[in-house]
């Protein structure tokens, strides 16, 4: 228990002192996972809409694949992305391995299926006749999609939260494709792993608390968006 209290005290001290290194790590975590989530929202929701609104052969297989993708182990993603981004790999020319861009890429690969899978379930949960109803009110196809997304906003924002939660908390991919380089690719999770392995449990706890506060703040913001304007 002492360790936890000490960690909490240190976390406060680090935050209040505006320790530049901790601040940098925190902001990088937020930036990397935030951008990865945004990319995943675009790709994941796009895929969810495309699958939900169209009938095609093999649709069930595609849905099964999307659902499987929700459980992609970050280490596995990290390994594949690393191999692809190696200097002599197929995307080595990009030269982004061990940069924040690589972490964003890996995290987007992790979050996209989560948002796509949960987003698809959210859209499929709407009454099937609703899109006909919207079209018959005179909507164009894009207006229809917008109204469907709006109608499913509660579970869709829950999907976004799940996606963000999945990537802000993962460590395997970040360490493999980012390398936990001080001042460049060190994020809250990789820093926590490093500090605890060095026996600096107080610092590890401090970083963990910051991570929790960060996750809570972002989800609180999304929850606010989710519940806003709902008639009671």
């Amino acid at each position, binding site marked *: 228990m002492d360790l936890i209290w000490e960690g909490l005290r240190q976390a406060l001290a680090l935050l209040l002192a505006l320790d530049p290194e901790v601040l940098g790590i925190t902001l990088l975590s937020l930036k990397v996972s935030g951008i990865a989530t945004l990319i995943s929202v675009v790709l994941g929701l796009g895929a969810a809409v495309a699958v939900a609104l169209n009938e095609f052969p093999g649709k069930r297989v595609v849905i099964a694949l999307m659902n499987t993708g929700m459980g992609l182990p970050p280490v596995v993603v990290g390994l594949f992305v690393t191999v692809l981004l190696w200097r002599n790999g197929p995307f080595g020319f990009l030269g982004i391995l061990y940069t924040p861009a690589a972490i964003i890429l890996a995290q987007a690969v992790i979050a996209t299926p989560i948002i796509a899978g949960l987003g698809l379930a959210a859209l499929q949960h709407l009454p099937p006749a609703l899109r006909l109803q919207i079209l*018959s*009110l*005179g909507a164009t196809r894009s207006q229809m999609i917008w109204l469907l997304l709006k109608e499913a906003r509660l579970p869709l924002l829950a999907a976004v939260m799940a996606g963000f939660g999945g990537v802000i908390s993962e460590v395997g991919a970040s360490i493999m494709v980012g390398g936990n380089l001080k001042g460049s690719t060190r994020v809250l999770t990789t820093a926590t792993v490093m500090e605890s392995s060095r026996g600096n449990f107080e610092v590890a706890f401090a970083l963990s608390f910051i991570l929790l506060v960060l996750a809570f703040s972002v989800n609180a913001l999304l929850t606010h968006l989710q519940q806003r304007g709902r*008639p009671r």
Partner: protein
Amino acid sequence: MSAPLLEVQDLLVRRGGATVLEVSALALAPGDVLALIGPNGAGKSTLLLTLAALLPPAAGTVRFQGEALDSERRRQAFRRRVTMVFQEPLLFDNTVGGNIATGLRLHGVSGAELTHRVREAADQFGIAHLLDRSARRLSGGEGQRAALARALALRPELLLLDEPFSALDPPTRSGLMDDLGRILADTGTTAVLATHDQAEAARLATRLAVMKDGRIRQEGGLRQVMNHPGDPFVAAFVGMESLLPCRVVSAAEGLLTLAVGGQEIIAVGEAEPGQGVLVGIRPEHVTLSLQTDKTSSARNQVPGTVTKVIPWGPFHRVELSCGFDLCTWVTPQSLAELALAPGRPVVAAFKATAVHVIRTGSQGGPEPLA
């Protein structure tokens, strides 16, 4: 008949390789209210979805004001002039007002005009007090009222209704049908209503199409189809009664004296003298004799002539002209004893309680539809 608003030719809809709808011809004049009646799976909903341009047909044409809806661009433009209401209200997770406004915004209505038209539609359907209520907290009847208000706020040139009352309990259904009938008549909106309830069709429609297995078995004016069903299937669905448009001569103590086809009949009901009413008489309530029976309790005994005798399963369906159309069923024995054949003069008797008022028209106005 004026130029058709909507015209269907050789329509064919397939689903999974099977033909689910085949309509060779159907036309609607402005102001018509067509009821599609038939059992589940008869193709009523499919026909409505095709008319709403939500389901492209495999073959055939749908013309609206003479223009064929043969491209997605034209169907899209047409969908802004037609609106469909489904069996479920399908309201958005918003307030009632927000729901009505959503449809109007899709039509590019905004500002003061938007507020005005939301209010107007809500007033028409008696839900102005619910405008700020969440659509998730409405009763079934209120929900369907909101859905109808959202649809009619768009002032559609064609309104398509897919069993909008079937999920409602009888009193709620009756009140909503009255309001919808009045609004359709006031606005002159052309409408197509799918239902499996002949009473619903009789109350709202001017025309009737009976469907079975994806085809229209019989289509025509409401009274034409109801009073003269072409085959036993149609009769089983709609030929349950003779419909008569009457005018109220006098009303007292729950009894109405009605003028119809140069005759007067007595009915049970409430209406004002001078008002037009549509009444129904079921064939099993009509008895035939060769002369007036002074000892009978039947208040109505009208002379008439047999016009048609049709074998109908174990019975015969006898159609009469008494100045108005009437039909009854008789056994083969009665047919022989009374020597019923076209041209035979008879007396048709039915009790005042057998004449029920289906709907009433406006005071001094034209007779109610059909």
